[in-house]
């Protein structure tokens, strides 16, 4: 075991340590806070690079790359519960991505949050987030992963509600936490189930881990009472956690609202890293999710992966269609993120770890780029979020525009030059060969069309045409100090990260082309081979061709609707709305899912709590009251019995005795004459009696 494996824990500890120190700082120590956070990320990134280099070296030599370090945490019963960390290509890739994107966003935040009074607290939360996220990446125990996962959720909650004085931000944070918690509870249940079945939560433990061969065989062999294999049951429960975190249908509702947070937060947490944690979880648990019994046909996917695929495919199209009708620049990107996460899930389901993870990595770069570009736009436009009140920024913010365009083309999957094309194509290609159904492939293709369309719409609204700022009504907040100031380019501390990310978004595509599928080989710990033959295999070219056509179609449609003529002002109808007002309305309201939940789940919840209080008051409390009244009634009865029966007869008895006494007491009046009289009478009587008796 090498030094870096033994000290892998240092990578997440650096930011956590920085967070701890920052928490103790005063509000004024802004430079120190930013310095600590960025410094810790630089250290983490360097250590991650060391780890990555080691993985490269090992996989280049074709050696088994998985290295684990386990340690005991606490003792329960006769055994110790152990935690640990693992260094394998999956973790290494995730570490690099999180540390690199995180570092860039930290730097960007220095500029973006420069005027915020809670600057230090922002960096405290952000560092804590980065630490927990790096922890998710290296965890070798489902429990450790869950712990980091929950802390990630906490920081997400804290950062969405960072501007806590806004009620909408506070509500959005709460909604995010609770919606993801629904998934997390299922995850928890899956975890305890897995633990009780296998007796360990370590992923890899020299053959005894819970997702290693022997444990999987045992899990697949058992069947639950409802007919599912135990592995399927556990897999689905754990997937629920991923659905919550990664904003998949039906738990996607929190992610668009999470845009209430500062834009760097949206870029880091709600686009690049945290939301991808769900995808990472599925990737990490892939051996379990894909475990099948020996008798099943090798080509049929497992139930779990089928569910993953369908959920992903549906989410991809569902969210992309909503993005068409949004006006808030960040909400468009949020729905786009949901949609792309759907692609990743689909990629995992149909193509395996490498396919899903490649899209995760490329997406992290270009989506972080897009969000930071959006942040730059918002910053330049003085907190304006509505794309329809922007316009003409192409000339005013050239760097932002150029980088944003790169991100947009990467997201759309513009052929050859952009990373998104290669990663999306790998997913579509895998979907086209999926044995269960072709529908996910068609859904994915429709998603590509929609993505190209809504991104074109957004770019035209934001960067082209004339500024529509002046025509707008005075916006709600920050209006006083803004006035009619013209938008301006953001400072270098914000634009340099944009340029770096834009470059990465282009270059990353090179590591996953069919000709040189380096990423795929790396994840699978094989040496990568370079061969142009890759393009001609298994119908890859037709898929590329079709997706290219679809992308161009989407871009052209976008141009047809928004680029051709003059864009109307913010109050006029959207071009699509003019064509199909009803459909547009449904899309704008995100298929009314939120309202549906309000009318059903939330109302039911409120009703439940009322019922519980009512039961407390009337049933349980009522029973107690009833008992009280019974006891009271009994005592009243007792008292009346006492008063009217016992006491009265007692009184009567007493009275008779008294009366008798009074009568008798007359005899003892103490007067000698009466005593003598009685003695005399008695004497006379006695004499008479004796005489009477003698005669008889």
């Amino acid at each position, binding site marked *: 075991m090498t030094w870096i494996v033994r000290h892998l824990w240092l990578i997440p500890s650096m930011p956590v340590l920085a967070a701890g120190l920052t928490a103790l700082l005063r509000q004024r120590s802004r430079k120190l806070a930013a310095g600590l956070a960025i410094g810790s990320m630089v250290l983490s990134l360097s250590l991650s690079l060391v780890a990555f280099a080691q993985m490269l070296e090992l996989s280049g030599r074709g050696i088994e790359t998985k290295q684990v370090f386990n340690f005991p*945490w*606490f*003792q*329960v*019963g*006769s*055994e110790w519960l152990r935690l640990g960390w693992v260094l394998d290509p999956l973790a290494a890739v995730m570490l690099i991505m999180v540390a690199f994107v995180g570092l860039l966003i930290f730097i960007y935040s220095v500029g973006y949050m420069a005027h915020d009074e809670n600057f230090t607290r922002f960096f405290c939360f952000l560092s804590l987030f980065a630490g927990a996220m790096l922890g998710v990446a290296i965890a070798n125990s489902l*429990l450790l992963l*869950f*712990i980091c996962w*929950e*802390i990630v959720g*906490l920081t997400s*909650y804290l950062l969405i*509600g960072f501007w*806590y*004085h806004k*009620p909408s*931000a*506070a*509500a959005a*944070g*709460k909604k995010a*936490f*609770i919606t993801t*918690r*629904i998934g997390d*509870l299922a995850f*928890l*249940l899956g975890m*305890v*189930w897995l*633990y*009780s079945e296998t*007796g360990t939560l370590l992923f890899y433990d020299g053959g005894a881990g819970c997702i290693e061969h022997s444990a999987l065989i045992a899990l697949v062999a058992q069947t639950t009472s409802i007919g599912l294999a135990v592995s399927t049951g556990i897999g689905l429960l754990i997937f629920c956690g991923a659905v919550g975190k990664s904003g998949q249908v039906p738990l996607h509702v929190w992610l668009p609202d999470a845009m209430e947070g500062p834009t760097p937060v949206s870029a880091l947490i709600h686009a690049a890293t945290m939301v991808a944690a769900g995808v990472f979880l599925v990737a990490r648990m892939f051996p379990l999710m894909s475990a099948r019994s020996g008798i099943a046909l090798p080509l049929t996917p497992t139930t779990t992966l089928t569910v993953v695929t369908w959920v992903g495919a549906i989410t991809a199209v569902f969210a992309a269609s909503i993005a068409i009708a949004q006006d808030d620049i960040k909400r468009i990107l949020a729905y786009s993120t949901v949609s792309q996460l759907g692609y990743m899930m689909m990629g995992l389901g149909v193509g395996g770890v490498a396919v899903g993870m490649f899209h995760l990595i490329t997406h992290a770069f270009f989506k972080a780029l897009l969000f930071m570009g959006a942040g730059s736009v918002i910053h330049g436009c003085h907190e304006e979020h509505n794309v329809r009140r922007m316009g003409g920024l192409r000339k005013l913010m050239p760097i932002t525009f150029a980088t944003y365009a790169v991100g947009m083309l990467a997201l759309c999957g513009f052929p050859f030059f952009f990373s998104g094309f290669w990663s999306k194509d790998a997913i579509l290609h895998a979907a086209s060969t999926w044995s269960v159904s072709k529908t996910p492939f068609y859904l994915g293709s429709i998603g590509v069309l929609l993505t190209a369309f809504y991104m074109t719409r957004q770019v035209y609204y934001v960067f082209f045409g004339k500024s529509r700022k002046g025509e707008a009504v005075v916006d709600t907040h920050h209006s006083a100090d803004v006035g009619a100031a013209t938008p301006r380019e953001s400072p270098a501390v914000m634009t340099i990260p944009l340029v770096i990310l834009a470059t990465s978004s282009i270059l990353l595509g090179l590591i996953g082309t069919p000709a040189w599928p380096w990423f795929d080989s790396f994840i699978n710990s094989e040496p990568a081979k370079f061969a142009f033959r890759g393009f001609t295999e298994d119908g890859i070219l037709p898929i590329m061709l079709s997706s290219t056509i679809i992308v161009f179609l989407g871009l052209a449609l976008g141009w047809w609707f928004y680029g051709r003529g003059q864009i109307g002002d913010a109050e006029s109808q959207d071009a699509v709305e003019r064509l199909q007002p009803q459909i547009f309305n449904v899309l704008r309201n995100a298929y009314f899912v939120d309202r549906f939940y309000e009318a059903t789940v939330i109302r039911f*919840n*409120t009703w*439940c*709590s*009322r*019922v*519980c*209080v009512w*039961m*407390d008051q009337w*049933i*349980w*409390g009522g*029973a*107690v009251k009833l008992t009280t009244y019974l006891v009271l009634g009994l005592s009243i009865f007792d008292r009346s019995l006492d008063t009217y029966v016992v006491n009265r007869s007692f009184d009567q008895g007493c009275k008779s005795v008294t009366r008798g006494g009074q009568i008798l007491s007359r005899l003892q009046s103490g007067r000698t004459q009466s005593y003598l009289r009685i003695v005399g009478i008695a004497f006379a009587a006695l004499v008479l009696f004796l005489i009477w008796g003698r005669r008889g």
Partner: protein
Amino acid sequence: MNTLPLITTLTAVPLIGAFAILGVNSQNKKLPRNAALIFSFIALALTLIVWHRFNSSTGDLQFEELHTWIPALGVQYHVGIDGLGLLMLLLAAIVVPMSIAASWQIQENASLYFSLILFLQTGLIGTFTALNFFHWFIFWELSLIPAFFLIRLWGGPQRASAATQFFVYTMVGSIALLLAFLAIFQCTGVFDFISLTDLARNGQLIPSLAGKLGWHTLGPQQITMIIFCCASLGFVVKVPLIPFHTWLPSAYAEAPTGTTILLTGAMSKMGVYGFLRILFPIFFVEMRSARTLLLWLAVATIVLSAYAALAQKDLKRIFAYSSINHLGYCMLGMISVAGFHGESAAFSADKAAALNGVMLQMFNHGLTAATLFWFVALLEKRTGGLRGLNDFGGLRKVAPVFCGLMGIALFSSLGLPGLNGFIGEFLIFRGAFPLATWATALALLGLLATAIVILTILQRVFSGPLNERWQNFPDLTIGERLALLPPIALMFVLGIYPQLVLGVINSTALKIVQQMRY
């Protein structure tokens, strides 16, 4: 043992303190609280010594003291602790200083107030250490009576009815318990818990009960069952389990907050403790028969109380219901263990996990709930008694430290990993899931509702625009920060290094699992 009888000394310290403070002139406001704090710290120090000397590798009783008391009645003075007892002693020793600190403002009749608190502590220590029913019951009642007066004399506006309800309710339970043990004594002539456990283990308990108490057509099992029901009533009320919980919200809400800390932090553990110490070893057969019923009652307790908390508007009532909810998890874990699984190693591992979780949860809940109520006390001090959910808003702006620290305590109550609440709940769920699958799955609803409750508090009290009324809300003072530091630090320590507590209780949990094999 010719060393100092530590347990007796520990029991005596607060008692001496209580009598000493009682003698203080009632005009003197400061002396009673200072003296009470000092005595509670002495008790804490003694408890730490006990902890230090405790041998955690065995689940057997330690620090035992056994003296004949009333030979004619089989009454002995018998005290001793195992891991569970030690844990409860630690909890009581931690919670009492917190309660005294949170009662710092009490002016009216301060000497009586603080001496009652120390009486209560004696009752708690006695209950957690006594091994003979006779003096165990005296201590059990001794903790009840001071609590009644604390609520009755220093409570809120509804204190009269709350105190009466609390007293009568608990008293009914206690009397049932007393009757049950008198019946047992009549048949066996034994008051000692350990001897009774041995009798039960040998299978002599049921025949001897039936022999003396044969009544009409009731078989031996039914008679024992009736006695078990009477005995468990006392504990079930104390825990409390729905539907015997209605005394709790009003008692917690009306009691002075310093007293609520004691009620929730330490006294609420007496019920679960009684189950583990008395009912489990003596009535294991009956526990098994009643298992299904008790299990679903526990689930109902978890879910219903969490939902009831959701509809409350008073912070103290919210935390009161949440307290019921948290002890519901203890009941769930404990009762799931009661089933019979023989020697099966897998189930033994599950049971050990569940029992460890239950004990850890008892300690964690005591710590967290006491801290939360302390924060409520601080809030009341600043607002003149206001503590409604909707009375505040945006406090983070004016009192960031207060909100930050209370936020930590709230998240600990929610069961966030990294803080103390999580490991206990995780172990309970881990242990209970294979033993009682559907009940455990359903209990997750309680976790969800608790999360909603906690986040609603964070949203309404701390976030949103600042309520103009609290423009000058003072943040925590340096003294308050220092006072709150130990419990908050403990939350982190136990969240990151739970072995600190689990190391103490694991052997005891294993021993109980061993006993359940029969």
